[in-house]
């Protein structure tokens, strides 16, 4: 593995695996719909329909949208940074978005969710742009330096956020944004997440241009691509996707890292072909981890941020130590 991308051919044919993967994903969603404290079979039909429509379906949809969005955000971020080991949680994007939500809450407590969302997007844009500018100076021969830099960069922003929260007596709220959790999702509280679908579609539309960006600045310009403009669009998509996640459910680590890496191993690096897989994989991972969090200590819940902290860190370590590490 080096700083520059390695273009791989698909190791698995899509024709056989696609239906299987789709069935697995739908089964996960069905399981997510059926798990909960309220027993659907015991209630009257109207009541159980309400349970599904008001609580279970929104929760599952939110997990699908957030997961797909984060995975795509991770993929785009890896494209922009030209390093496989970054994602919105590692490059400070989610932490900056949390800073934005905190600032919006402190300065404008009555802000509607859209207002908070805009402030969070703005800070996420700034935080990620600064990260990308800083890592351009790092030596490209050291692929592990960038994620390390990103982790500490995120940590510094988190320290800043904690400091502000401490001064403003907001420390108790902080955990809501810093540790993602789907338990608060009900009908009427997640609809803004549908914007994720539009952004994923935009990424799909731009897939070929993004694939060219992975070749680097000179090659992109040589191929007739407006490189800086693509960087700006990519940055915008990453920031909005991360801000949406942090505002609605809170920070969720590692989805944007695990899924693109796994998909790249199985399906290669032509984004036109892999992008749907990344979105589907992210959705499945998020729904699955949310399900695990609900089942581990049933009927209590463990936030998905905690579950993915364990799963994600373990996967990342595996990527680093496994035979695959060299690509």
């Amino acid at each position: 593995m080096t700083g520059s991308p390695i273009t791989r051919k698909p190791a698995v044919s899509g024709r056989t695996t696609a239906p299987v993967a789709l069935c697995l994903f739908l089964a996960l969603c069905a399981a997510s719909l059926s798990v909960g404290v309220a027993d659907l079979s015991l209630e009257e039909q109207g009541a159980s329909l309400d349970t599904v429509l008001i609580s279970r379906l929104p929760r599952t949809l939110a997990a699908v949208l957030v997961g797909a969005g984060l995975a795509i955000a991770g993929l785009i971020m890896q494209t922009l940074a030209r390093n496989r080991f970054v994602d919105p949680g590692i490059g400070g994007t989610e932490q900056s978005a949390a800073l934005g939500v905190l600032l919006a809450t402190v300065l404008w407590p009555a802000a509607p969710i859209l207002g908070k969302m805009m402030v969070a997007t703005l800070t996420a844009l700034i935080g990620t742009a600064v990260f990308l500018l800083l890592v351009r100076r790092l030596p490209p021969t050291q692929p592990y330096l960038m994620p390390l830099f990103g982790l500490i960069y995120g940590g510094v922003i988190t320290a800043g956020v904690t400091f502000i929260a401490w001064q403003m007596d907001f420390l108790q709220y902080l955990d809501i944004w810093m540790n993602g959790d789907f338990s608060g999702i009900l009908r009427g509280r997640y609809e803004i997440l549908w914007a994720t679908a539009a952004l994923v579609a935009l990424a799909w539309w731009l897939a070929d241009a993004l694939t060219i960006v992975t070749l680097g600045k000179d090659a992109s310009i040589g191929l007739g691509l407006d490189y800086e403009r693509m960087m700006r669009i990519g940055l915008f998509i990453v920031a909005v996707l991360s801000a949406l996640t942090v505002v609605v459910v809170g920070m969720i680590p590692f989805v944007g890292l695990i899924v693109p890496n796994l998909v790249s191993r199985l399906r290669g690096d032509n984004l036109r072909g892999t992008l749907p897989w990344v979105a589907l994989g992210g959705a499945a991972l998020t729904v699955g981890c949310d399900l695990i969090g609900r089942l581990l200590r049933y009927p209590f819940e463990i936030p998905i941020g905690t579950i993915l902290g364990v799963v994600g860190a373990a996967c990342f370590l595996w990527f680093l130590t496994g035979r695959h590490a060299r690509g």
Partner: protein
Amino acid sequence: MAERRLWIAAALALLSVAAFLTWGLRGNLAFVLELRAVKLLALVQVAVAIAVATVLLQTISGNRILTPSIMGLDALYLLGQTLLVFALGGLGFAGLDPRVRFAGALLTMIGIAVAVFLPLLRARRSLYLMLLTGALLGILFRSLASLVARLVDPNDFAVLQGVSYANFGTVRGDLLAFGLVLTAACAVLAWRQRHVLDVMALGPEAAIGLGIDWGRAVTGLLVLVIVLVAVSTALVGPVVFLGLLVVALAERLTGTQRHAVLLPASACIAVAVLAGGQTILQHGFGGAATLGVIVEFVGGLVFLILLASGHKR
């Protein structure tokens, strides 16, 4: 020269200790002084523990931007403690003497650390790969600790939630005397090894050539580091970048890497930073509880600058 600079560090430490004890003294003198002395004792102990642990870890790993917390050692202490709660059950755990609890968590921690970190330190792979692996292990341990805490009692996970940053304002007192003995013992052991450490700083090949049993020495020192980290984590919570900050400062100030100077200089500067910082925040800004966050913020920035400038001696 280096020795004379060491006296500057010592003077700084004494000055901040004096300021900590006497600034804004009023009311019942005996009571206030006793309160402050106890706090000061804890701060000094934490400062010495972190400084010595960082110097030892940096020497055995052969790089100067490592701290025990970047390698996830403090998270390991939390994990050890939660695993103990998990094994004994909440009530059994609460019934134990705090010192027995501490010893149990310490043993769990040493077990896991020797199994996980020794191969990592032995391999001496690329610096950045090792740092990244350590940072990820830290995230893994921290998430595992919080996961296990929720499994034990979903309603009572506040124990762990509250300790993501060091709090120097309120020190947990029940372990003070016990920790003092441990810290002093470890510091003395490290001091007696100062010449061995000088040789080990040359790298494994040179050190083995000069007659050092590398494997045994690294294992022994790693255990020292773990005990020191456990003591400081138990007293104030996790401190990530303080060690990095004070050792880098001590090196700049004394201009030497000889451990006979570096160890006491780092300890003195750590005392100066903690006692001085706490005094200034307490009396200047009235927000003493945030020293941990400020140290994290500044230390993190220093770490980023060191990384970006390719500093890797």
